[in-house]
């Protein structure tokens, strides 16, 4: 197991390296001169633009800039934001708790809603409950997060006045954004849980369990669900990545702090070190989550043993 984890961590290195190269080149492939784009017409003269380019170290060849970035990053120094002048790492860490809170809350909503709907649909297969659950799931996966966010604000903040529309702090400010963000994942989890459950319920051991006279809820929850959840766990891991991406939008809509908001503002400001740092951080997080998902298989399913030949 340890060997497996070690190998996975080593494999993450080229992934992260690739991410940094991609992000670095994307910033430069964007049309327009970066310094000019940064200053807009406020740069009164070409002299100005050149001066700033020098000051920001953007006059070096791109590979020199990349090497410098990488060298510093390896020493744990992601540089300073061009705009706020804060340490990039400090900025990321100051925004991360808000994103973590949002992602975890929406994941909780996704799992609770998704698994419940999925199980209900599976045990009442082809009933109205099944149709309704799957319709709700279809809706959930079809609604763009920003639109859903606006609708939630419209109904629950503006019309009903139940929750504040923006900001963070306290569950009342978390529930709307977490719902907007989690509902898409809930829909996917619901559909997957349903199909997985339907399959498991047809297996012989379930029939055996029922034949033993076990109560139906024990059969469903202890015997069937535990096995049906294995593919669902993978999906939860994958969805976590989407949640991080979705946070970019939801954090903006709900005017919350977070990594997503940080990425948006830093891209707009062409704050290269901050964009780099935030993307690298997010990539690390993604790799880590995937690793955790893989490890969790072993826990859920004793038949899976990594590294054993």
């Amino acid at each position, binding site marked *: 197991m340890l060997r497996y984890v070690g190998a996975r961590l080593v494999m993450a290195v080229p992934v992260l390296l690739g991410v940094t190269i991609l992000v670095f080149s994307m910033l430069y492939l*964007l*049309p*327009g*001169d970066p310094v*000019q*784009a*940064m*200053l*807009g*017409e*406020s*740069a*009164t003269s*070409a002299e*100005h*633009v050149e*001066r*700033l380019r*020098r*000051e*920001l170290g953007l006059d070096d060849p791109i590979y020199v800039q990349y090497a410098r970035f990488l060298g510093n990053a390896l020493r744990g120094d992601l540089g300073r*934001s*061009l*705009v*706020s*002048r*804060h340490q990039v790492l400090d900025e990321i860490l*100051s*925004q991360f708790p808000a994103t973590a809170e949002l992602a975890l809350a929406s994941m909780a909503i996704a799992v609770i809603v998704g698994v419940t709907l999925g199980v209900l649909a599976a045990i009442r297969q082809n009933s109205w409950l099944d149709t309704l659950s799957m319709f709700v799931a279809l809706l959930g996966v079809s609604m*763009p*997060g*920003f639109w859903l966010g*606006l609708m939630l*604000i*419209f109904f629950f*903040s*503006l019309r009903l*006045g139940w929750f*504040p*529309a*923006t*900001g*963070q702090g306290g569950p009342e400010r978390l529930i709307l954004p977490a719902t907007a963000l989690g509902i898409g994942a809930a829909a996917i989890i619901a559909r997957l849980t349903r199909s997985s459950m339907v399959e498991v319920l047809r297996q012989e051991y379930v029939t055996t369990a029922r034949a033993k006279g076990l109560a139906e809820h024990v059969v469903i929850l202890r015997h069937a669900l535990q096995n049906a959840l294995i593919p669902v766990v993978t999906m939860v891991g994958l969805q976590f990545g989407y949640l991080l*991406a979705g946070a*970019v*939008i939801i954090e*903006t*809509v*709900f*005017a*919350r*702090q*977070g990594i997503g*908001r*940080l990425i*948006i*503002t830093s*891209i*707009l*400001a062409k704050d290269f070190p901050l964009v780099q740092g935030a993307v690298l951080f997010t990539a690390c997080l993604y790799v880590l989550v995937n690793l955790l998902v893989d490890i969790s298989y072993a826990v859920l399913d004793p038949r899976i043993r990594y590294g054993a030949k």
Partner: protein
Amino acid sequence: MSATRITRRQLLVIGASSLGLLTAAACSSPSTPPSPTAQPPAATQAAAATKAPAATAAATAAPAATAQPAATQAAAQPAAAEPAPVKGGELVYGLYYAPDNLDPHVAYLSVVQNVIMNIFEPLVWQGPDLKFYPGLATSWKTSDDGLSWTFQLRKDVKFHDGTPFNAAAVKFGLDRIADPATKSLGAVTLIGKYSGSDIVDDYTVKINFKEPHAAFLDGLCQGFLGIASPTAIKKYGQDFGFHPVGTGPFVFKEFIQNDHVTVERNPDYNWAPSIFKHQGPAYLDRIVFKAIPESAVRLATLETGETNLIDDVPGKEIGRLRQDKRFNIIEAAMPGMPEQWLTNTEKAPSNELAVRQAMCYAIDRPAIIKAVWFGVSAKPASGPLNAVTLGYDKSIEALYKFDQAKAKQLLEDAGWKAGADGFRAKGGVPLKLTTMYAAVTWLDDMAQVLQSQMKQVGINLDLQKMAGPAKNAAASRGEHHLAHMSGPSSDPNMLDRFFNSKNIVPNTGWNFSRFKDAALDDALNKGNTEMDVAKRLQLYAQAQQIIMKNVLTVPVAEGLRMFGTRSEVYGVRPDPRAFYLWMYDAFIKK
């Protein structure tokens, strides 16, 4: 600024829309009136500047300049009569974009000024009449050669950290801005060719330039040149932007990035400039600036009461809010360049004057304003500057009136004959113009309405929406016939960047018209350094006439910002730049 604005809006669209974000979250409010709005970061006003440098401007009361602006200035309209001010209360202001650094000497986002103008104060203020009034400086004069400015300073002012405001603080700030190590983004564009300051005595400072900087006062009255405590700067260094210390009516309290900034009343404040309505400490206990980028959400917070003042109300909502007694709208006309289409005078067929003139006659501006901005009071534009800009030349308004027959006649006379499809051609060459703009919803709307209007006189617009920076780069290389541009600026010297032929520079220049004219260049060059206000404005009037007689731009609509307040908020007034609101006189009375 403006380009910046577009740029970023654009970027946002690139960054976000792939995710489905859309213009929405973006910052902007697509549907808001022209310019102003939304833009994220508009940056610093560049050299904006100013007015009146008159030579010895004097002080006190009304400043110097005598020159008057042709403008009518930004109108705030107080709804109903204002009650007697009351002290106390908290104002929550929903900003369209998050401030990211409150160090005036470093920051460049225009939204930052909303916050820092409460914490810091400028040497000089610009009043609603566009004249300059004493701030931390009581009077000023320029030397005969225009190379230095001497400011007399107030002697009764203290920074929030208790240290005294004096000539050394002014010098320290300017030197810091000029120092490359500071990596100033905004302020450095406002100080011209600054060469150093001399402390004449504790309360007299002489500021020197390598060449005359006519727009200096305009720069000085912006937040980016606000005076900061040297002691605090030395103490906090690069983190000063998160511990700002100035002399203003509000003291910095808290800055949570991407969430809010809080400032509280400065109880010791007793040096308000005369442009304000009262003296002594501010009325409000506290102002909380919350960044709420999505315009629909920002409006929702105003309606729920989470905020009681917001930036940039979407144009389509203005009508509804005006009917609702719970809200007021504050309008602020923006100085600077209108929404306009810069014409390429080098590339056929827009190199023909008749073609360019025909477009100016064929455009029905009120129809565009109605279609794109819901008829919300953005005014039709007549030239390269908005009417509230210092030095606006009213004479150009008479040049082109909507007249389709005249447009057609001009084209006929120039040999452009209509074909079966209604579009004109000459010698087999179609009258087709490549029209470039940033892919933003409302710009797209504007381009499409323009396209249909031009079609009515036989001009075929080939609409090309692009990423903002790509549009700017392509237009700087002259690949367009028409390219969209707009941008706020409080000084007419912005024209220099867009119309001086020295700024025809592939990939980085802003001169998209590519018109080389000695008289125009001369007027723009001299405008940067002419210290006599009247003469200077005359130069810009000439420039505007040359620009419009040669149709280097097809202007559409002037910029207008619309702030929304709850009706319990009184006394908020927009700065003449429309970039930020004056909060010192604001109070809340339910």
